[in-house]
């Protein structure tokens, strides 16, 4: 890994990043860039697939909003090799989802150059929009706080609940090609960058970015303490959640307002199946089937199979759940889906000794097995 610190002239963080991205896009290292760019409406940032360097204007790699999980977009772009390298600017949870999707062969890793940016927390899109419309500058406000190692959300809007308990506010270059560090960095004066040896060499040779090996030990300290603090909060929050959802009654209360819109599934980066079983003929029941079930139980909730939908989705993908919380953002009725998935996922991941997003080399648990394992967990002790 190579590191560098870029000194800035008067508060030109976005300008310097834009200049770097322009040099990158004009080089032969990438054919296009996927970067968060301010919408024409001005109150949101969405990923734009950019070919023309002139359109890198109004991009902000650290915009504290995530209307769509970039891993989903990148899967659409690279499930077949696109024939050129795409540089993608992502948040840590998006990069971790990329790792999982790569294992499921939904992303061609060789077709993407991944640039992960430290995440200071994100707002729900509607809240971000409201902050901007009220004249605030949420991205800049957070970046100024990050140097001291703690970012508070604006008093008018909290961070997304997934961000409050996120243990991955920053990454190193083990799963990405390049990292733009913001935690512990005085971004009014400096930009901190890490890159893999290969990328650093290529960037240097093409005069895109020189690596001067300057490090930032403060960032590392801050990340370590942030992780410890968030882990504590996470354990507390999910522990409380499990107290609420520890019986069928708890599950029924949790899902009381579910309208089976499938938004949680549609927006989940890990739920990648092109055809979900819940949208397949398996669940196209005939009228007499519904009436038969109603006869059996006296009544059934309609649309049917609401609890089964969530329990099945848990079983199908919770092992790979990276906790980005897009399910929470997508739920029109504010069901805390992320808390459900992280609570169940934490225990399941521990059982399988698996951490989603950690490494490209660890196979997804459902695709592998050991000859002797999980005898107790599968309930087979003594048999």
């Amino acid at each position, binding site marked *: 890994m190579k590191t560098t610190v870029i000194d800035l002239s008067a508060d030109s963080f976005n300008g310097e990043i834009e200049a770097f991205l322009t040099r990158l896009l004009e080089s032969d290292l990438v054919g296009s860039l996927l970067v968060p760019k301010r919408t024409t409406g001005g109150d949101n940032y969405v990923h734009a697939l950019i070919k023309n360097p002139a359109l890198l204007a109004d991009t902000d790699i650290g915009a504290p909003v995530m209307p769509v999980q970039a891993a989903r977009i990148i899967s659409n772009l690279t499930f077949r090799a696109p024939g050129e390298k795409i540089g993608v600017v992502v948040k840590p949870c998006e990069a971790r989802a990329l790792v999982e999707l790569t294992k499921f062969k939904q992303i061609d890793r060789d077709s993407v150059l991944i640039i992960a940016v430290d995440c200071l927390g994100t707002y729900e899109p509607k809240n971000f929009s409201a902050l901007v419309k009220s004249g605030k500058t949420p991205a800049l406000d957070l970046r100024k706080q990050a140097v001291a190692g703690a970012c508070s959300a604006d008093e008018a809007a909290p961070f997304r609940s997934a961000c409050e308990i996120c243990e991955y506010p920053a990454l190193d270059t083990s799963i990405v090609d390049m990292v733009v560090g913001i935690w512990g960095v005085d971004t009014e004066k400096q930009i901190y960058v890490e890159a893999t040896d290969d990328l650093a060499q290529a960037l240097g040779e093409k005069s895109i970015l020189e690596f001067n090996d300057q490090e930032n030990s403060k960032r590392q300290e801050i990340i370590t303490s942030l992780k410890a603090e968030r882990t504590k909060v996470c354990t507390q929050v999910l522990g409380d959640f499990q107290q609420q959802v520890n019986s069928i009654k708890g599950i029924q209360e949790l899902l009381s307002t579910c309208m089976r819109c499938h938004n949680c599934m549609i927006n989940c980066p890990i739920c990648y199946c092109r055809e979900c*079983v819940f949208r397949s003929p398996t669940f196209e029941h005939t009228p007499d089937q519904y009436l038969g079930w109603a006869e059996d139980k006296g009544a059934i909730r309609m649309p049917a*199979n609401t609890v089964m939908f969530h329990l099945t989705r848990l079983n199908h993908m919770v092992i790979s759940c990276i906790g980005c919380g897009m399910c929470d953002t997508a739920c029109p009725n504010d069901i805390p889906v992320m808390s459900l998935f992280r609570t169940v996922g934490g225990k399941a991941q521990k059982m399988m000794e698996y951490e989603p997003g950690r490494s490209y080399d660890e196979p997804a648990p459902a695709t592998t097995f050991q000859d002797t394992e999980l005898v107790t967990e599968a309930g087979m002790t003594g048999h």
Partner: protein
Amino acid sequence: MADSKFEPRIVGFLCHWCTYTGADLAGTTRQQYPAGIRIIHLMCSGAIDVVYVLKSLLDGADGVLIGGCHPGDCHYQTGNLKARRRIALLRSVMETLGLDSERVWLRWISASEGRLFAETIREYDGALQDQGQNPLANEWDL
């Protein structure tokens, strides 16, 4: 309940190459076992998707039995070991949410083990008698 004796209903997902044939053998050799099991024929225990196990339980089955080949004997090499992972995960999910994971059993029963099949059903029936009726059988809001 009006019935004097509770007869558990078990849904059995049985592998074609072992437990299903074992169940057949149990019958032809006149082994006695409770009649509450409803058998669904699979080509491999590895073909089980949890959606069918969950459907059974949420619709009110008292227990689900997945029967596969002993490790090393899988007709498709390793389907049974993949099933074991899936069932371990299912049971973990159920336990975290306070659902009764003992209503899901995975057992290795070979084609020649008709006696073991009958014993397993008797054992499961007894265990479910103790656990009582699946409370989800009376829940409409699922």
